[in-house]
């Protein structure tokens, strides 16, 4: 059966969980387990747990509720302890480390920023900037059989695309990172050249969001900036 673990908080966290469903169907009942100066928020683990929308949403909702009342260390989705004593033992064994991390994220929230750019706009810029690209582009347009040139063109463009994405990503981060306590780059996806999380003090959250808005304004229509938050500090524990 096992115990599903959502979060670790300080023992003085109020953990107001009434009315919230846990993971599983029927939903597991949320409760807390104490271990020294720490508390774990848990529920009975469902027999077969998968990353269903309902369960992920439940996990996330518990953390969002907890973060309203104090510092929280969010667990990664899907962690199951063998039984209650092993949860308590884990809290006690790692008490020092968890307490330290709770202090680091206290008063802070995570913002996740994803940025993509319209591909055609980027390609147009690359064609504009590079004589070699322009030359190869013309040649391959006129001669469908120019396979080697086509590969050479693509390789060149591909390198330029990567270069632009890296430069753009670094530039966006530079603009907003002064307002954050810490930042953590996640792997970019094919679509989003930037996928980064920022740990931001609550008091500066508005300013941070404003800085992102200003950057979006500055970048113009080709760019799509998606800001998510405030979130539990998933990326900073």
């Amino acid at each position, binding site marked *: 059966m096992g115990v599903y*673990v959502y979060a670790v908080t300080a023992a003085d966290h109020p953990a107001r969980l009434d009315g919230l469903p846990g993971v599983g169907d029927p939903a597991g009942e949320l409760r807390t387990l104490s271990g020294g100066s720490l508390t774990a928020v848990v529920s009975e683990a469902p027999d077969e*747990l*998968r*990353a269903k*929308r309902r369960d*992920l*949403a439940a996990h*996330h*909702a518990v953390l*969002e*509720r907890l973060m309203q009342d104090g510092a929280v260390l*969010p*667990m*990664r*989705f*899907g*962690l*199951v*302890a063998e039984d209650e004593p*092993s949860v308590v033992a*884990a809290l006690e064994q*790692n008490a020092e480390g968890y307490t330290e991390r709770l202090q680091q994220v206290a008063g802070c929230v*995570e913002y*996740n920023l*994803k940025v993509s750019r319209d*591909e*055609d706009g980027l*390609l*147009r810029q690359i064609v504009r900037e590079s004589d070699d*690209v322009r030359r190869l*582009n013309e040649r*391959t*347009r006129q001669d469908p059989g120019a396979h080697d040139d*086509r*590969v050479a*063109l*693509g390789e060149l*463009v*591909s390198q330029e*695309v*990567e270069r632009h994405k890296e430069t753009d990503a670094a530039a966006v981060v530079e603009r907003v990172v002064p307002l954050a306590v810490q930042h953590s780059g*996640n*792997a*970019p*996806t*094919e679509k989003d050249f930037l996928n980064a999380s920022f740990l931001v003090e609550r008091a500066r959250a508005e300013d941070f969001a404003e800085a*992102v808005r200003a950057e979006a*304004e500055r970048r*113009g*229509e080709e760019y*799509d*900036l*998606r*800001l*998510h*938050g*405030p979130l539990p500090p*998933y*990326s900073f*524990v």
Partner: protein
Amino acid sequence: MTVMQQSNSGGGRGGSGSLYDVLELILDRGLVIDVFARVSLVGIEILKVDVRIVVASVDTYLRFAEACNRLDLEAGDKAPSGLTDLVGDATESGAKGKSKGALTGAVEAFSESFQKGSDRDAEPEEERRTKSSSSSSSRSSGTRRTTRRKEEEES
């Protein structure tokens, strides 16, 4: 310019669209306690595939070249063909006869289940493609995907 911000002052509200966008944080970040079991979750590793592996290939070069060839250099934002479409087509009719693996299918359904009520469909495209190119064993993907999707819908 587009800025979309999800702020959840109500607590636990967040629509499925925004949940999808923070999926990798919920699944892939967060604290781990080594002695606890991690439930096996089909498809998670796919989120971590390094896109650079895909970028540096002749297939990708040819797609970029074709996208450049088709580019209307005078156009503003009304270019006829997005790269995404091109890449999608190339994958479907790929010379090596790539087909979606079972894992990929599961992720596809999984992603879709997060997108109900949202019209975004570009991201799973990327994940599907990424996986296709590194997957060697792929059979009965269609069936598997259908089954899986049904289960998700029932949930």
